[in-house]
């Protein structure tokens, strides 16, 4: 049975994030011949609609408005509600990102619909969509079905397979005009303070360099940052490192904190408490560097080095510089 699927483009600083293409690629499969639509909600949608077509959207619905420059729940909800009413989809995909995870439940409640959050897979079984999602931050998984003519799903970045872009594809673009008077918006952004380091976003990073208690101080994170810079990686941390105030809580990876699934994860000076393992053990390749050979992190690591991180990490940075320059 075919179905129509609407994908909300996930934008950051005006650019499309990779998860958008992952969602479109999955939508093409899951639609079983139905339509795949994309939605763009932004201050300006300039330059993104063609790319959405290349990944499979046949129609793009756009709401552009100065009030959508920053994420404001009331404004984005009004815009997405208008698009849903126009496109009439059976399934709406949003990224499980700062915007998607906040917006999806608001819309699901507005439409009285079911939602499945943070999915890592979608399959067809007997004509139904079956969604796989982690529970207990990845200590276990469930497969879920959602009933109703309209359902919402938020999609974890880096998990669904992205198809190749086909630059010959085009889409019809429909621009909806939506009124968003300031007095209709119950919250407003006074200021945005950019704190993300080096612009590499933890949830989408292909490589993560994470530090734990063994890093010993805020200063101790410097060699990790240098390693990350060489690799174009994001820096993360264990709860112990955050609690000890070596770094900001925004970097925390674990059952409390972020759950990440990069291609390569360096656990540096991290012992591997269960709550941390829950947040990173689904990474494709794990490297552990720790002076304690008994540390539980070595049980999940693909490659381990037992030793002093303050000696090993700078050597590793140098070696990578050489190898990557080749």
């Amino acid at each position, binding site marked *: 049975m075919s179905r129509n699927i609407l994908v909300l483009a996930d934008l950051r600083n005006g650019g499309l994030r990779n998860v958008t293409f992952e969602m479109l690629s999955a939508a093409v499969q899951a639609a079983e011949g139905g339509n795949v639509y994309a939605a763009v909600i932004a201050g300006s949608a300039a330059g993104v609609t063609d790319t959405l077509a290349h990944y499979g959207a046949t129609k793009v619905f756009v709401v552009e408005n100065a009030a959508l420059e920053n994420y404001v729940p009331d404004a984005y909800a009004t815009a997405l509600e208008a698009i849903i009413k126009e496109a009439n989809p059976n399934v709406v995909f949003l990224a499980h990102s700062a915007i998607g995870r906040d917006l999806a*439940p*608001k819309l699901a*409640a507005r439409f009285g619909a079911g939602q499945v959050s943070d999915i890592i897979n979608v399959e067809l079984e007997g004509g139904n969509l079956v969604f796989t999602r982690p529970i207990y931050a990845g*200590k276990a998984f469930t497969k879920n079905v959602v009933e109703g003519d309209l359902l919402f799903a938020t999609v974890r970045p880096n998990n669904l397979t992205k198809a190749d872009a086909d630059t010959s594809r085009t889409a019809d673009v429909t621009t909806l005009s939506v009124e968003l008077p300031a007095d209709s918006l119950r919250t407003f952004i006074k200021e945005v*303070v950019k704190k993300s380091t080096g612009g590499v976003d*933890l949830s989408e990073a292909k490589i993560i360099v994470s530090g734990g208690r063994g890093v010993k101080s805020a200063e101790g994170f410097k060699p990790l940052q240098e390693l990350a810079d060489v690799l174009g990686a994001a820096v993360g941390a264990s709860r112990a490192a955050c609690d000890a105030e070596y770094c900001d809580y925004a970097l925390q990876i674990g059952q409390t904190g972020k759950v990440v699934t990069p291609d*390569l994860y360096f656990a540096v000076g991290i012992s591997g408490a269960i709550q941390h393992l829950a947040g990173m053990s689904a990474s494709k390749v794990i490297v552990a560097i720790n002076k304690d050979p008994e540390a539980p992190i070595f*049980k999940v690591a693909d*490659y381990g080095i037992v030793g002093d991180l303050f000696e090993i990490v700078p050597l590793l940075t140098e070696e990578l510089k050489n190898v990557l320059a080749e």
Partner: protein
Amino acid sequence: MNIYVALKQTFDTEEKIVVEGGKIKEDGVRFVMNPYDEYAVEEAIKLRDEHGGTVTVVTIGPERAQEALRTALAMGADEAVHITDEVAFGDEFTASTVLAKYFADKNADIILCGNMAVDNGSGQTAIRLAELLNIAHVGTITKLEISGTDVVAHRDAEGDVEVVGAKLPLLVTCQQGLNDPRYPSLIGIRKANKKPLENPSAGDLGVDAGAVAAKSKVVETFLPPAKEGGRILAGDNAERVKELVSLLKNEAKVL
């Protein structure tokens, strides 16, 4: 100020997960208040101490969940509400619809929740509740200031901080970094047992079983494949680092 916290009891984050007969095994598991809800309770108590009023903590869950309410009361909350009716047990649609019925006549100035529960981790119920109550929400906050009905909250947006203005009534979901939740004192624990704990039935709340039935259903629960320990590299530091980079490049092919 009329302050509410909607919270959940969850597994302790140090618990291992065991699946038995297709379900997560609960025997012998240590249950705690969802860690993100601790921030909500702490912030609620601080708001009450600053602005006056009462803190009411609300949960949906089986008998054992009363312990999480008692913990909140021992921390300093004033009253608790425990919805144990199985009609209220379903998915996030169910929970938010039941809570919306409860909150319909409460005139809450502010409702605080954790930004997600560490068990299901879907982060839906609180935001759905705000929508159903037709009040605004600010998600994943790390700072909260209230003066009169004006609110300024810091929202964690994937590492960036959005400074958000809003007005009461409001629902917020709490993120790590908001505060340091207090431990209940001995006196607090003793007092908690004497504080009021209400137990409304689905009927009391005007909840119709058919209208709150879950929209989503779990069809399978499984554990990830166990990971085997990998290779511990040998040699001096320079050799091991060279070998590691070579393995990452040629064997794992992740560089």
